[in-house]
Structure formats: structure tokens, C-alpha cells
């Protein structure tokens, strides 16, 4: 079993002919992902690495089963492309672009919920079932199969953690990038619930950051519902309050979402919080030894 993605997940790439789209399609195919079709309006009939390109998702759906889709569509058109994929019935939609207007994110989130689509992102690096299927832009070499599930709000920091895990001999089961925006489809809680059920996952690493209340909610959920060990790392301990650091994620307001508050909530739920990224593997090792 795995979470969200499987070895035979049939993947569509929306915006496949762009720079990013074509580069990462190759990376995904090399990783082993079954990319079965691409969409690029006006480029229907072309092919990329033998993958047929269609004008619309509906056209692609006439010829392929589409389990999941990843969007490389520019931000102004991303809402429409997301609607298109959800309407076509994909089970998982990875919405990669950043700078999506927040009202668009609200609309896409609501529609995904109506249709029961798992929405990953926006502003995410994607999701990967290590060794089976990667839908995203994460550097493949760090994502080797193993028993640690990772869920992160930020991208590069997640690679960093996955890198230290790999260096310490820990592979990953599923790694999910929630996305760095204020409004994203999945929450820590959603992913923790899945990983708790997942037979491949033995320990879970949460990579959070200051701002918002996602970590606090996760802590409550862990306390009540998660039996597997959870380790956290949180970025932003040194950030001054009221400053928005990066796109939308990291900001502390009204005394909420502070580093100390999140650490307290997580510790309360029995989740150790690593002070530095490189301490994560030893905490994972410790938790698995118990």
C-alpha cells in the first residue's frame, strides 16, 4: 500500500510543452512515473518523449485513464486548468504553480471538495511514493524507498530533511508537499490520517514553519488518532513577528502561530521537535527503537 500514488498511477501533465513542464516530465518518467498524456492548448497532436500531447484534458481522457494530474500552467490560467482536471475526474491533482490568487485557491479547493479530488498545493513541490511514482519537481535522487513518511509545508527544506534522512540510511515511503500558500488543499491532518493507515509508513516526519495553525491542529490530531511515532522540524524560530517571510506561509500575527506555541502543542502530543534539520534522523531512529 501507499498513500495517494501507486506504481501504476496514470499521470497527466498539464502544461507539458513549457520549459518547466517538459523538463520535469522527463524527470518524472526517469523516476518511473507513468506519464500517459500531456495537455497544452493549441499543441494537440504533438508528442514529448513519446507522450502524446492533447489540446484539452477531455481530449486526453478520450484516450487514457487519468488517475492524477500535475499542473505546470502559469498562475493566471491555473484555476481554469485545475477545474479542467477536477472536472475530468482525476483522483489526485498536484497544483504546482506559486502566486495563485488566493480567491482562485479558494475556488479550486471548494470544487475539489465537491468532486472528492485530492488537491495537493498550490505552491507545492508535489507528492511522491518513493520508488513508485513521483508527481512533482523534487530532485529524484533523494527519494528512495523506505519507511519514513514525510509531510512538509515548504519545498527545499523538505528536500533538505529527506536528504539528511537518506544520508542516515532512512528511505521514505510517501513524501507530500502541502504547499506554501495560505489556502492549500491538504492539511497536515489529512496526510497524517492517511499515513497512520499506510502499511509502508512506520514513522512520520512533519516539516512545518511558523505562522498559521496547521501544526497546532496536527498536534491535536496526533494526540487523539496517530499511533505511529511523529517527529517534527519547524522553521522560523528566529523570525521576528509580523513579517511575512516568503510567499504567504510564514507570518506570525496576533500572537498565534509562534514557534514556541507550535513546539509546545507538538510536545504535548508527544512529538519531539528537532532544533536543527540534521537532528531529524536521530530522532526518527530513536522513535523507531522504542
Amino acid at each position, binding site marked *: 500500500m501507499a498513500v495517494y500514488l501507486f506504481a501504476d498511477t496514470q499521470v497527466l501533465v498539464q502544461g507539458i510543452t513549457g520549459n518547466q513542464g517538459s523538463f520535469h516530465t522527463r524527470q518524472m518518467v526517469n523516476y518511473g512515473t507513468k506519464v500517459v498524456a500531456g495537455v497544452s492548448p493549441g499543441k494537440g497532436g504533438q508528442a514529448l518523449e513519446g507522450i502524446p500531447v492533447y489540446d484539452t484534458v477531455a481530449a486526453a481522457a478520450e484516450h487514457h485513464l487519468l488517475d492524477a494530474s500535475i499542473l505546470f500552467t502559469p498562475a*493566471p490560467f491555473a484555476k481554469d486548468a485545475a477545474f479542467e482536471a477536477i472536472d475530468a475526474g482525476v483522483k489526485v491533482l498536484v497544483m504546482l504553480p506559486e502566486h495563485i*490568487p488566493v*480567491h482562485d485557491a479558494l475556488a479550486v479547493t*471548494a470544487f475539489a471538495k465537491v468532486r472528492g479530488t485530492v488537491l495537493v498545493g498550490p505552491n507545492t513541490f508535489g507528492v511522491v511514493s518513493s520508488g513508485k511514482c513521483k508527481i512533482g519537481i523534487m530532485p529524484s535522487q533523494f527519494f528512495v524507498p523506505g519507511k519514513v513518511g514525510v509531510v512538509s509545508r515548504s519545498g527545499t527544506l523538505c528536500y533538505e530533511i529527506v*536528504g539528511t534522512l537518506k544520508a542516515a540510511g532512512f528511505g521514505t515511503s510517501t513524501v507530500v508537499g502541502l504547499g506554501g500558500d495560505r489556502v492549500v488543499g491538504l492539511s497536515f491532518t489529512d496526510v497524517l490520517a492517511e499515513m497512520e493507515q499506510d502499511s509502508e509508513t512506520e514513522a512520520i516526519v512533519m516539516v512545518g514553519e511558523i505562522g498559521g495553525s496547521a501544526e497546532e491542529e496536527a498536534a491535536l490530531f496526533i494526540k487523539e488518532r496517530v499511533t505511529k511515532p511523529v517527529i517534527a522540524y519547524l522553521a522560523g524560530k528566529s523570525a521576528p513577528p509580523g513579517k511575512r*517571510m*516568503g510567499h504567504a506561509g510564514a507570518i506570525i500575527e496576533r500572537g498565534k502561530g509562534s514557534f514556541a506555541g507550535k513546539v509546545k502543542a507538538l510536545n504535548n502530543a508527544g512529538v519531539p521537535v528537532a*532544533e536543527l534539520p540534521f537532528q531529524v534522523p536521530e530522532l526518527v531512529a530513536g522513535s523507531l527503537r522504542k
Partner: protein
Amino acid sequence: MKLYEYMGKELFTLYGIPVPAGGVVAVPEEAEVLAGKIGAVVVKSQVLSGKRGKSGGIGFADSPYQARELAAKMLGSRLSGLAVDKILVEKKLQIDRELYLALTIDGALRKPVLLSSAQGGMDIEEVPEELIIKIALDANIGLQPFIAREVTRRLGLSGAVARQVVDILLKMYRIFVERDAELLEINPLVVSGEQVIAADAKVTIDDDALYRQSGLPLVEERTATEKAAHEIGLSYVELDGDIAVMANGAGITMATLDLIEYYGGRAANFLDAGGGAGVEQTAKALELLLARKPKTIIINIFGGITRCDDVAAAFAYVKQNIGIPVPVVIRLVGTNEERGREILRENGIEAYQLMHEAAAKAVQIAREN
């Protein structure tokens, strides 16, 4: 992007939300003329700070002369470090009640939320949570009249006042959606006899949606460096330390700042070079950092979309063409790492493999210089 109060009120007027009679002026004489027409006025300095009342940014004048005097005092002054270029001169309202209304977005719920309180007029952060009415809106239907009616009921309003508040809420929601607002706040919403009037207007437009909001005025609230960073597509925040920081991704950049603090140093900035910054962009980012004359620079790259060789090439370019007068610590892993390390070696730098080692080194350099 935050709008000045007067801009917010122009937007309100466009959508039919009542605001006090008055206008925005830039010279004291215009304040006098306006007050001559209006009578007793309130004079409000137009800066993007929430604490104008407490810091003397708001005053009252009973005569045109007083209005001019007040305007003269305010215009050209500084408030919370911000220059006052414009003031709003408005009719002084008879205040019977002050309410609070706001629309914003709750990330955890993934929904718009309507906030309201019968305790308007004071800083909402000082209003106890139990006196704030919070209603999450279903994006499938938005703010419907029944929700607005429920708000007025919970605020204890009735009759004509309730009907006006319902109307104002529905118009606020239209602005919220049509103008891509992240925050729309009226505090206070003044009940003056049977009239309901928006005495203040706080509007924040989603930066990511500005491309489709061409009808809106542009307001700049960033420092020159922040603005320059934004123009080349980078996210930059000024801090007060001496170690300049560049990394790729908000999370890893914050983690780098955390490491610097952990080892006892102080970061000069947050600079997220983002995903996939190319040679030119990275070079410009480096120049930005140099301009602030830090004691050292740390570059922390975990290459994914960002290519290590691009970062190295940018470093080489700046070093050769502009010069880098301070020591630089670089950590480089990921896409095209080997080629990147080679370029750096050609330029006399050995890149680190681990970010905490690089951070420790940067702190040591800053301490020694």
C-alpha cells in the same frame, strides 16, 4: 497590497457603501476649504499604520481655521516612521454605536470568514475572542443575505440599521471577491441615528492578483531593497544583523536564519531566491546583498529546480565583474552540484555539503570581522 484609507473609501463609494462626507487633500489650504463646506471635521493622516489614533495621526477641528492648522501640523510629519503626504478631511460623525465588520480568509478552514463585533472602534486585537462573531463562508454560495441577517441578529441590531448593515455586508463581499481582497475591514462602522456609515476602511489586495486588478491604485510600502528584490522576482525582508543570507525556498531560508541564530550570529535579511532562479536573477540578488555591506554572505542552495551551476556562475560573474569585498560561505547540493562546485573552485571557493556547517562558519567569520 494595502490601500490607504482614502483609497479604500473611494472603493466603498464605488460599491455604494456610505462613508462620511469629505475628501483627501495634500495642502493645508484645501483642508480649510473642505472644512468650510463640511463644518466640524475629523482630520486623518493617510499612512499604512494601524495605530494612527494613539500616535496623534487623527485630530478634530471645529472650524476651517483649526482644520488648516491641524492639516499643516500633520502634512509633512512622520507617523510610525511613515511620511504623511496626504490627509483625509471628513465630517465629524455623531456616534451612537461603533461596530466592527471584516472579511478575510481562514487558511485552516480554506474559506472566507466574516468577522464582526459589537465592540467596534477599538483595535480588534484587543477585543476578547468571545465578543467576536466569526462565520466561515461556503465558497459554493458565498455571502448570502441570510448570513448577513444572522450577523445583525447576533450584533443585536434591528430595523433600518440592521437592513443597512446587511446591505453593507453584501457590498463588502462583492468588493472582497471582485477586487481580490485578502482583507476588508470597517472599524468602526458607525451607527449615527438611523444612518450607518463606514468611518474607516482597511483594504488589502492580494499581491498575486494585482495583474487582474488594473483599476486599483498601486501602493508601495516596501523599502527600496525589498522593492528591488520584488522586481527581480525574489522575496526579501530586511533584518538588523550583519550576516547576509540567500537561500532557495522560504522554509530553507528561515531554517538558515534559525541556524545563524543557533550559532550566535545575526542575520541581515531574509532572501528567498525561490524556485528556479537563473544566473542573472541570482547575480542581481547577490548585488542586493552586497549593497547593504554585510560582514559576510551565506548562500545556501539545495538544488531542485534551482541549478547549482547557475548559482555558481552567478557568483563568478559578480565576483569578476563587480567584485565581492566580503567573505562568502556557500553550501551547494542538488541539481548539477558537481559542475557548480567546479566553478566555485575556479573562483577560489570550496562549497560546503552541510548547511549547519556553513552557518557555523558564517557566524564565525562575522564574529571575527
